[in-house]
């Protein structure tokens, strides 16, 4: 049972209030007619399925009815951050890798 911070309600809420709504930062092509079938198929059908850091959309369905984004670890279920629509994540697989490296470097 996840416990997730709603960036609009500004507090932790129970998973029951939310719906998961898929991968975040999938942008609709500006001119669908101009792109190839393959590019369109990529947009509508193909999603990443990483083990580890994943940016995803959640919907506060039983709460404020806002969509927002979360950076979540698909393995540990740790929610690293949630952020409002239109914002970019501050934590990514890359920033975490760098942080881990410097942590190890510091320890040795």
């Amino acid at each position, binding site marked *: *049972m*996840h*416990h997730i911070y709603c960036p609009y309600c500004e507090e932790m809420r*129970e998973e029951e209030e939310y*719906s998961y*709504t898929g991968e975040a930062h999938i*942008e*609709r092509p500006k*001119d*669908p*007619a101009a*792109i190839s*079938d393959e590019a*369109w*198929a990529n*947009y*509508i*059908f193909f999603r990443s399925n990483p083990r580890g850091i994943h940016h995803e*959309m959640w*919907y506060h*369905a039983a709460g404020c*009815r*806002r*969509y927002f984004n979360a950076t979540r670890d698909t*393995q*540990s*279920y*740790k*929610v690293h951050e949630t952020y409002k*629509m*239109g914002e970019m994540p501050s934590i990514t697989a890359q920033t975490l890798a760098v942080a881990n490296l410097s942590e190890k470097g510091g320890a040795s």
Partner: protein
Amino acid sequence: MSPNLPQINRLATGGRIDRSKPMSFTFNGKTYQGFEGDTLASAMLANGVGVVGRSFKYSRARGILGHGAEEPNALMQLHKGKETIPNPRATQVELFDGLTATSTNGWPSAEFDLMSLMGKIGGKMMPPGFYYKTFMAPQKMWMTYEKLIRKAAGFGKLSLEADPDTYDKINAHCDVMVVGAGPAGLAAALEAGRSGKRVIIVDEQNEFGGTLLASTQTVDGIDAATWAEQATSQLEGMANVLVMPRTTAFGYYDHNFVVALERRTDHIGPVAKTGTRQRLHRIRAHQVILATGAIERPLVFGNNDLPGIMLSNSVSTYINRYAVVPGQRCVIMTTNDSGYQTALDIQGAGRTVVAVVDSRQTPNGRLVEAAKAAGIQVMAGHGVIEAQGSKKVMGAIVAPLDEAGDKVIGAGKTLSCDLIAVAGGWSPVVHLSCHTGSRPVWKDDVAGFVPGPSIQNQHLAGAVTGEYLLSEALNAGIQAGATASGTTSAQIFDCGDESIGVSQALYLVPHTKPISRAPKQFVDFQNDVTAAGIELAAREGFQSIEHVKRYTAMGFGTDQGKTGNINGMAIVAKTMNKSIAETGTTIFRPAYTPVTFGAIGGRDVGELLDPARHTAMHPWHLANGAEFENVGQWKRPWYFPQAGETMQQTLNRECLAVRNSVGILDASTLGKIDIQGKDAREFLNRVYTNAWSKLAPGKCRYGLMLKEDGMIFDDGVTACLSDNHFLMTTTSGGAAAVLGWLELWHQTEWPEMEVYFTSVTDQWATCSFAGPNSRKVLEKLCTDVDLSAEAMKFMDWREGTVAGIKARIFRISFTGELSFEVNVPADQGHYMWKKLMEAGEEFGITPYGTESMHVLRAEKGFIIAGQDTDGSMTPYDCLMGWAVGKTKEFSFLGERSFSRPDTARTDRKQLVGLKPKDPTVVIPEGAQIVMDPNQPIPMDMMGHVTSSYWSECLGHGIAMGTVKGGSDRMGETVYCPLADGRVLAAQICSPVFYDPKGDHHND
């Protein structure tokens, strides 16, 4: 009633039982007596009950092994009839007067068991993997095999009657959750409680204290049990602390979510019960302290499953807590100092300690010296290699072992005894820490797994970390409580327990014979897994511990291998010449102990299983005999039968009323979304397939909504209320999804658009009435709107006063007849409905339900999104290209997908009308469609029937269905082969069966 037998093993004094409150109970039909404060197990042992059940596979006699959740053998069937409860452990059943228990297995009885004969013969024939090897094929026979095996071996039985008990759930929140109220947990809760934090502490037992309740030690000079009582009452006195005994935290889930089962009435039995039997607590904790303790391990030796062989610590617990000594002459087999405490306890109870058999060559330490000083014989460097007896222990064969404990190095001798107490070391209760995905870590110095690193806000205290001294547990508890509360404490407890001697890591006591030839050496008692079986599994190539588990069934019982798993892993490791750290452990999953399904269901049963949504007119429907249909969560009138009517007769009457005069339908359940803003119109352009730019105020339009893959997702009529204000309707089941869909696009892709959406589904009650007389009905109630065909055209809407109520009147039709929908605020919906019924009386206005609505719309070829479409149908597949705007500026949702090669195929399944060749036939919905009924199976499937009804007005059956390339097959004959052997023929036709030119609704 038979006279009570004497409690032969009960001590005259001591223990935490109340001798002034005797209680009668029966076990397997015999009546016994115990006392308040007993468990069923302690009361059975007090009465000398040895055999409590038969084993799963070999049907061997089994006795009580432990004293708590770890117990693998003493599974009971409690109570009778519908009250019966299968499989609780006798060690965790609190005794009450009148309790009735039987063994769960053993047929015809546990004492005399026919199946043991089969066990003796069949033992060799039932190696590990027996089920896989024997019952793999033919697969369909498995059910038969399983029934036989269950009858022979099976566990408890459920009552087939409805459970008379109720269960419920409650949500709880706290700063600090403490699991376990032994010394560590109590200390942690005290410290956290003093900090003022919100604390919840749970323990599975009726009384807080854990090992303190059976300890002979002191805490800061106070008797351990007394200290526990004082600590508990201190906690109970704190307003910020919730104290929950009889509550098992059985699952520890993500983000510090703990689920605990509280047993509220089990200890008073099935009589005179009020409230719920069990309550499931769903606890969200900021910090969790696991003070779950440790479970003593048995040792694996020949015939180690005989009744009378018990865990050493359990023997001490029975003596000190329950004043029960489960034997007269005791041999103690130990690999560590724990066994010596038991020896002292037995001697203190006035019974005979035959010897302490210690696998260590040179045991020392405080307890060893104390035992020697008490005159107890210590046999160092020895092991009990085999127990003797049939249904109870008669003796122990003791032999000298080498230093590593690998080999017997001398002749054995037999010690006569009726109790063997076994102390094989301790296994920390890592179960809960595993539930969130943390892998336990093997520690050589502990000779056990301890919880591994966790990403939860989790703290550990006490024996769960492998620190077994009482003072260590208390001090760790204080520190965990302080850390979890964000405070500090320097409190130190004094228990006078100097360090004890080093334990030997011994799991399987060697026999003079090799494992495969020695008498059965049991590892997992509940599933009858032996050392030989595990060794065989390893030799057969099962190298992963997870595979060994599944192959042998080790740890698969209701006890989840609490006593057996570590021993089994040690044997696997040794067989493969690896360390236990290298072979690793299996992961424990919830539930720690079994949980009643009733508790998981809680109150979400019966009419509370799923919310039933009602419209404002629901009372009228109930009063007028409606049969109801579930549409999403709505209860909609399905049809309104009159006395003596069959359902079909009702439908025929209702449909004809609409076609010939007027019928009325409650359409309040349609989703309604109020859309405001200067970009509302453009937003509709983007989410609907058709054009909205020119829809004027006062007009309505039907729209199709697609997902981006081009498939129909929802449909409905949207009205233009004013230039910047629209009212959208959705399907009854799709309202929430459509609102979420609109918000998704607005919030993520087009936030710059000035538009707001508000659900008004519940705000408006909708009376839809249709038929040639519908205008006349409305004209009686509404005088401020010109309702004439010229003034108010099909797909117009007007604001007006109906029966004195300000209403929105829509001239739209889902029946093909002249039709109006009157929307009024729902508070007045019931009133409006009644006024319309009154006004329509002279025309025989007929209420109709969803089934007639379906027939009427199918006669007109109108689709129902979700019935005729299934998420794989484009508008073109539904022959609804007319609803797709071809010249819209913005590429609306789904448009781009029309030109994808798969979507553009001409041989896609298309929705067509189907006219049965036999006019009296109604083809079943869901029937498969083929072109050639004589084609051998597998036939080429062309599609299926999506809607099918009897049309009273047309006098024949009508249907819609999907057919590959159907739009090019008009007039062709298709066939529906049915499961009953009939093959129904139908002709492909236009789905519009009735009034194809639309004259009626334009009237």
